[in-house]
Every structure is written in C-alpha cells, then in structure tokens.
C-alpha cells in the first residue's frame, strides 16, 4: 500500500515512472476480489486493462503452441481438429424440422394448395404489381423480376384494392399475385399470394440490387425456364415457403438455357440470386450472376388469399418472442 501511495504522491510524475512502479507492484498480491474496473483513475485503469489483455493473449498463445506441439508429437494419432462453433452449429433444435421420410408431411404436401402445381396440373402464371404510385427503382425492379420469372406480367396498380384484383386474376388463370410494396422510392416489402385459394406470404425486402448495379454481370437472361435451387428450408414452415417459391417457376426447366434461380435460406434471411452456369469439367462449374438480387425475410404467412383483416394467420413474426434467442430460427 505504501508503495502505491508513493506512486500517487508522484502525481504528475511521468506516466512511465508510474507504470514502472505499478509494474513492480504486480509482484505484490492484489486482494482476490480486485477487478480492473474498480480503479478510479482512467489512465491507470486503461493501463491495467491493457496489461490484462496482454496477459490473456499471451496465455492463449502459449496454450495454442502447446496444443500444436502435442498434435505434431502425436502425428497421425492426434485427435481430429475441433470444429469451431458457429451459429449454424449451435442452432437450437427446432421440433418442426422436417424429416425426409416423414409420412405425415408427405401426405400433407400431397394434398395442400401446391399439390396441383407439383402434380403438373397447372402452369405458373405470375402477376407482378406494386403499391400505389411506384417510383423508378421499384418499376425497374418489377420489370427485371418479370424477365427472371417466366410467364410473368407486370401491371400498373391504379389504386385498386387487392381484394378486387384477386377475383379478376383467378378468372384469368393467374397462379400467383406478387405485390412489391414501396417506401421512399425503394422496394421494401413483398406480398406473395398463391392464387386459387392458396397461402399469402408477406416478406420484408432488403438489399435490392438491380442489374446495372451488379459487377461482372452477364448478359440479360433469356427466355429459357430457369432451374430452381432451394437451400436450407428445414422446418415445416420453411418447407411451405420453399414450395411457395418453387411453384413460381415452371416444372420443366430448360437445361439448355443454363440459368438457375436460387433461394438460399440462412438464419431466416432468404437470399435470391439468379445465375448462369457453365460446367467447365466434371469437378468445376463457373457461375456468372445475371439478374436482380434481393433478400427476403418472412413476416407473416396467412392461409387463404390476401385478407389482412379477417384472414387466418398461420404464422406471424413476433419479434419479442422469436428474436429473443440468437440461436433459434424459424425457417
């Protein structure tokens, strides 16, 4: 304590001297309940904290070296490298995860609203529209979407109510209604409604990149039907959404076109990409991005066609319940 006092008395003495004195202090034992945050002097506290960090780092390096030496010493008999923890590894097991062999789910999917499409009875026909008075970016986005999705038509929304549009669409044999909502001149939401009487999904759209903003992109997509890749849709809800996306595209892709549309789900964000691929040899494939890209986040899934007031919601994003745990995902 005396030594510490003398250091304080020095007061404006050079910081280096203080530190040296404090260093010699460290040989002296600190009370066991001491923590760096108790020091009131900011400079000294900062210094002690840096020292603490350095110590920790040194110990970590030593541990690492030791482990590496052990591994080398053991040679082939060394235990396999530990896998680092990632969010995907640590994901809380979701009880609704779909088992590939689950009969109940297979039966469900055989008889749900998409069964008509998956049995080859209907061809997809998509109507793309926007909210009222769309601005340039949204309009261009819709046009590009229409080139990416085969058999898609863009119509201008003249302030019509969706509930009135839907019966007309059904009458004209549309299978999908896609409404891009716009806010501040930028698309920010999408309502995807499967038409005869199918579910309606509402997504939040973010990171929209139009074709001309993409680096190293290829030429415009052709009229060939693209293939579809759906990644990581594991839970029951994920399955439904996956089928929702799959039913946007025709069943028989044109492999000649070598175009592929990907919906990749990662941590409840669905990334959409559109590529052209070419197989260089059996082991290597080159892909070139064409087409717009955007990310979706599911906000709600409603049974039946669009009816925000009286519809029956199968799933609604409740932030406080669902986003409380960082390792728990819904899709």
């Amino acid at each position: 304590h005396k030594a510490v006092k003398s250091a304080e008395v020095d007061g404006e003495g050079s910081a280096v001297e203080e530190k040296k004195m404090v260093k010699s202090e460290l040989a002296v034992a600190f009370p066991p309940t001491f923590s760096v945050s108790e020091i009131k002097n900011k400079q000294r506290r900062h210094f002690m904290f840096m020292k603490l960090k350095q110590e920790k780092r040194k110990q970590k390096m030593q541990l690492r070296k030791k482990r590496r030496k052990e591994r080398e010493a053991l040679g082939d008999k060394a235990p396999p490298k530990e896998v680092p923890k990632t969010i995907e590894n640590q994901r809380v097991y979701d009880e609704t995860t779909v088992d590939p062999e689950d009969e109940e789910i297979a039966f469900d999917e055989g008889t749900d609203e998409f069964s008509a499409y998956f049995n080859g009875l209907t061809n997809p026909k998509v109507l793309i529209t926007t909210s009222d008075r769309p601005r340039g970016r949204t309009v261009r986005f819709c046009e590009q979407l229409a080139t990416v999705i085969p058999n898609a038509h863009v119509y201008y929304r003249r302030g019509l109510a969706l509930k009135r549009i839907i019966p007309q669409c059904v009458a004209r044999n549309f299978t999908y209604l896609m409404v891009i909502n716009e806010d501040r001149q930028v698309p920010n939401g999408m309502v995807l409604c499967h038409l005869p009487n199918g579910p309606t999904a509402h997504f939040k759209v973010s990171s929209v990149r139009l074709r001309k903003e993409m680096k190293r992109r290829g030429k415009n997509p052709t009229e060939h039907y693209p293939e579809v890749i759906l990644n990581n849709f594991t839970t029951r809800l994920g399955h439904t959404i996956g089928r929702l996306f799959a039913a946007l595209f025709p069943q028989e892709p044109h492999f000649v076109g070598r175009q592929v549309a990907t919906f990749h789900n990662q941590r409840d964000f669905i990334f959409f990409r559109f590529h052209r691929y070419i197989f260089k040899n059996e082991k290597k494939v080159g892909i070139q991005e064409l087409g717009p890209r955007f990310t979706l986040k599911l906000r709600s899934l409603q049974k039946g066609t669009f009816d925000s007031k009286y519809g029956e919601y199968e799933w609604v994003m409740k932030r406080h319940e669902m986003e409380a745990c960082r390792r728990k995902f819904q899709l």
Partner: protein
Amino acid sequence: MQHDDVIWDIIGNTQFCSFKVKTKSQNFCRNEYNITGLCNRSSCPLANSQYATIREEKGQCFLYMKVIERAAFPARMWEKVKLSKNYEKALEQIDENLIYWPRFIRHKCKQRFTKITQYLIRMRKLVLKRQRKLVPLSRKVETRERRKEEKALIAAQLDNAIEKELLERLKQGTYGDIYNFPVHAFDRALEQQDQESESEEEEEEEEDDEDVGQREFVAEEEVEESDLSDFEVTLLSNDQQGATEKVESERSRNEEEDEEEMEVQTKASRSKGKSPANGSAARKKRAYVEIEYEQETEPASKSRAT
C-alpha cells in the same frame, strides 16, 4: 362604443394585427371566425360589428352571428345556430336567420357552407377507400436486422453453395446426356494413369506451352513489323525524310529489346491466363510507345554514329 372604421384603420392598414398573414400577393386572416379567410375591410370579424360565419365541428355545421348590441358582452357575442344536415334546408335556415343582413355576408355564408359540405362528403368517401397504414420503424431494430443480414450473407457463402448444388445435380444425372464428361470410373482410371506418368506429362505440357508461346510470339512480331513500318512511313514523311536508314537500324536494336520485353510479357500473360488477343493489344500499344521513344533518342544515336 364600437368604431369599426377606427378599428380597421388601426389593424387593417397601419399598425399590427396578430391574425394577419402577409404574402407577396395577398393578405390572409387567421381568425377562426373569418368568413372568407382574406384580410379585407368587409371580411374582418374585428372591424365589423355585424358579422356572420359558418363553422364546422365534428361533421356538424353551425351558423355564428355577431351583432352590435352584444358588442359589450364578449362572452355572449357570438350566437350559434345548428344547421340542418339537409343541404337545402340548411340554406333556407341561413336565409331565414340572416334575412335583413347585407348581401355580401349572406352570399359568403352560403358559399362557405357549400364548400364545407363538399369536403365533408369527400372525407366520408375516402374513409371507405383503401387507407394507407404507416408502420413506424424502430431504428435500433432496423440496424440490428441489417447487421444480421450481412452476417448471414457472409455465413451463407452463396457462390460455393450454388456451385456445390449444381455439381451434385450433375452427379445425380438430372441433366441427362447434355454434358459429355467422362463417367466417374473412367475419370478415376485416367487419374491413376496420370499419377503413374506424372513427370512426363508435365514436361509435355510445359513444352507445349513454350511452343505455343513462341509460335504466337513470332507471328505477332511479323505483323508488328509491317505495322510498325507503316507507322514509320507516316511519321517520317511528316517529320523527317533522310533518316530512315538510321531509324531502321535503331528499329532492329529496339526490336531485340522488344523481343526480350515481349518474351517477358508473354510469359507473364501466360501466367495470368490472358488470352492472346489481350496480349497482342497490349503489345501493339507498347509498340506505339516505342516509336515515340525512338524519336527522342535520335539525336543521341546520331552522336554515337559520328
């Protein structure tokens, strides 16, 4: 006593009126009892002791009247009459209440009443149509989501995932016979053969590379010579006339330099995997630069010659 003219003199023209709003072309009156909304001698509720207005409250219209007899009692100054919801009946009511009043006030009252009913009708219609719902965004939540999205994008490794999926599909044969790659076992056998005779194949490949490089190099050079000579001719015809021989000798020396440089360039381009077309374009550009260089060093060469 109520001197309207005096009041108007003060507030209307010279001194201050707190209800007056001045704009470039017009003066407006913000008084809620004003019938036209403009600041005029006949529209000012303060400067007219006999005045009437129509005001609307929660969809109900009222006729307000002010007479000079009640000017001393501010609490009771305005007389409020509820107007009927029926448009014609309300107009009759206005007429009946303002029966001996000046024409101006009667007319303006009716006008104002018409306007008010029209906008009430429009409000009722709009409520039936689609309402735009404004959802407030919380900034914290938005930044959090954006960050999560970025991290998810990095974790997704999209390109790898897509490539893997496509190769899987190729292996499973979903593409049928479109792609004529050798079958797996055949490939494996080939690989084994490769491993046995590794060194020989590498040498062959290297030789091929060298051969290919040299062949290209020679062809390019010949083309360039002719091109260069063309450039030469054009430039010299413009600048000098008698120094072609010296230039040609220089050219040969420079060509040797070029050769070395170009060799380096071809090797570099090979390593980078550029197509010969790119290389040749670069080479041609460099040749153009060489010409300029020659011109600069001409005097030096002359001195050497002499």
